[in-house]
């Protein structure tokens, strides 16, 4: 089936050159072009957030802080948090890689609501512009969590504008989630049953459920925050009859599941890469699929673990602490399944696989240290320290950003029709892995020793580890800049990519690279489950 589909489709023009006016891009409803628009936007925000992070690490080189004003420092780490969370991590994989490959993997022509897809990009951009404007005119210094009464009553910075930016971009999240859910329900190719879907689709489906159910709660919370700041209604500020802990409940009811909005798509990417580069069926397919769903559900039961020292009732804390352990189970199952897939596999160390291996290690460290901070008694010591910072960066950056880069390299030939230089890809994966660990491993020690987060200065004893961390950040920055260079180079000079450079099995590889505007010349028919790889002996002979 595959060869005839490819040949027939090659007669059509690729989506990249189908039409070439600016309007044909800005008004496109083609999911592949919207994915490119998104890819450009989130890359931009990634570097904005990265510059803020660089300034933070620069400040912490010396105990008294290199940046003269502590308030400027506060604004910098808030910028870093707000931009990275809402304008990079939450959208990253779904809107770029997801947008591009979901219809291709399903054997569909587009998402269920192509216009809604375009609208969601515009909402994202409008939210982003508002956010950038707020930062440009002075920024926010509350931290990305906007806790009241600090944010509502005691703060002179541009809280309302920043909150509106996040609020608007939230609608983009909801639209994307809705689009994916309906698409996966309605647009599967003939023969594509739920258990024949690649795991990436299960992951994005679970992510979308969280996006649709959790984001409205954030929207309402931020709206109330804005109302309280402007009209002084007493919802959160105790001085006018509110309860500040109520804000934390509502904020974390969104923001803990949001952690899984960020990491579940990463799980999906890794579940695609590992079978391909090990030439093995995914071990325990159904377990991996249902673990995504159960993570999406359980993630809503644990939010109180962010509030152990907030003044929340001790009984509630105990329950939330126990529930938090439950969500670790499906995540751990996935890690074991990836390792089970690699076992006795014919492993090839191409760049996407290097990122995937990095992901498994780094995410495991991030996940295991999550158990430390989920333990109520230990968290009283560790909360608000660099231990927490190191923990969630291992999950978000070591995990999610690494998965994003892995997926970007994996699908790059499909998206652009060009191969990137393989050696550069491997080098960047290695540099990122080393730079990441040098940056964040010392922060575990710093936090355990008691260095609080969000402080502009620190006791001189902590300097050695801080310098080490900042030095690592330099390596990490170099690692992130490298792909920007060689991927851009490959757009013009890269080798032409074949339809299926990795010998992978998904439907997205059965259409030319880059795909034609309508994706498939004829609607594909699915007869086999995903990841049906030949046994390793055969592969060895072929190579």
């Amino acid at each position: 089936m595959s060869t005839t589909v490819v040949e027939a489709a090659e007669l059509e023009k690729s989506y990249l050159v189908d039409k070439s006016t600016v309007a044909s891009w800005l008004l496109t409803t083609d999911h592949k072009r919207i994915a490119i628009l998104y890819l450009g936007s989130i890359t931009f925000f990634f570097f904005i957030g990265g510059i803020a992070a660089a300034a933070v690490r620069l400040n912490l080189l010396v105990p008294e802080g290199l940046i003269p004003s502590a308030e400027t420092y506060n604004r910098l780490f808030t910028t870093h948090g707000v931009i990275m969370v809402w304008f990079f991590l939450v959208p990253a994989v779904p809107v770029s890689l997801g947008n591009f490959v979901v219809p291709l993997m399903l054997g569909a022509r587009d998402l269920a609501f192509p216009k809604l897809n375009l609208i969601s990009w515009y909402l994202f951009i409008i939210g982003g512009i508002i956010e950038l404007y707020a930062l440009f005119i002075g920024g926010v210094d509350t931290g990305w969590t906007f806790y009241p009464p600090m944010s509502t009553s005691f703060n002179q910075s541009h809280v309302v504008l920043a909150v509106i930016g996040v609020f608007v971009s939230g609608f983009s999240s909801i639209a994307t989630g809705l689009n994916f859910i309906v698409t996966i329900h309605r647009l599967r190719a003939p023969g594509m049953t739920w258990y024949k879907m690649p795991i990436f689709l299960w992951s994005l489906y679970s992510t979308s459920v969280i996006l649709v159910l959790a984001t409205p709660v954030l929207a309402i919370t931020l709206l109330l925050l804005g109302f309280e700041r402007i009209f002084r209604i007493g919802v959160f500020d105790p001085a006018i009859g509110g309860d500040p802990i109520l804000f934390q409940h509502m904020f974390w009811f969104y923001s803990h599941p949001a952690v899984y909005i960020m990491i579940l798509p990463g799980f999906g990417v890794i579940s695609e890469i590992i079978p391909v580069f090990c030439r093995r069926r995914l071990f325990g397919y159904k377990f991996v699929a249902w673990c995504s769903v159960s993570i999406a559900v359980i993630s809503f039961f644990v939010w109180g673990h962010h509030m152990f020292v907030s003044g929340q009732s001790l009984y509630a804390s105990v329950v939330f602490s126990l529930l938090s352990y439950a969500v670790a189970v499906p995540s751990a199952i996935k890690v074991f399944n990836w390792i089970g897939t690699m076992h006795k596999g014919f492993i090839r160390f191409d760049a996407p696989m290097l990122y995937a291996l990095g992901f498994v290690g780094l995410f495991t460290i991030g996940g295991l240290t999550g158990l430390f901070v989920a333990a109520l008694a230990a968290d009283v010591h560790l909360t608000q320290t660099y231990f927490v910072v190191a923990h969630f960066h291992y999950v978000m950056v070591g995990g999610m950003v690494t998965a994003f880069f892995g997926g970007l390299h994996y699908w790059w030939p499909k998206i652009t029709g060009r191969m990137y230089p393989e050696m550069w890809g491997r080098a960047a994966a290695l540099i990122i892995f080393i730079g990441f660990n040098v940056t964040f491993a010392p922060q575990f020690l710093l936090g355990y020793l008691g260095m609080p987060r969000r402080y502009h200065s620190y006791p001189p004893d902590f300097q050695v580890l801080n310098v080490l961390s900042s030095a690592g950040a330099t390596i990490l920055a170099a690692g992130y800049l490298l792909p920007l260079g060689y991927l851009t180079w490959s757009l013009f000079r890269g080798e032409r990519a074949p339809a299926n450079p990795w010998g992978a099995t998904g439907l997205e590889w059965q259409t030319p690279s880059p795909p034609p505007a309508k994706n498939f010349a004829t609607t594909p028919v699915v007869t086999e489950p995903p990841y049906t790889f030949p046994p390793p002996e055969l592969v060895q002979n072929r190579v």
Partner: protein
Amino acid sequence: MPPRFPRLLIAWVLLLVLLGVEFGVAMLSFAPWLRVLILLPAMAMAAIVGIVFMEIGRAPVVARGFATAGLFWLLVLLGLGSMDPLTRTYYHTTVEHPE
């Protein structure tokens, strides 16, 4: 425009009116046992969304499933969320604001 558009428009205006009502009643002070009435406009809004926008009556099973899941999620938010205020012993005291 699809024929159902005016219906949707009316429902949307009704939602905004109910939102205004909700905002208004939140400002009034009720006896404790009457406070539950504040929920009425909110419930009406949820009903309108379910009946007019989601067309729950005619929707396929999947859509009904999602609507039920939405209610379940609300239950989680309110149920697990009220665990804290129901057992909390320490409340923040009023602080004075700087000018």
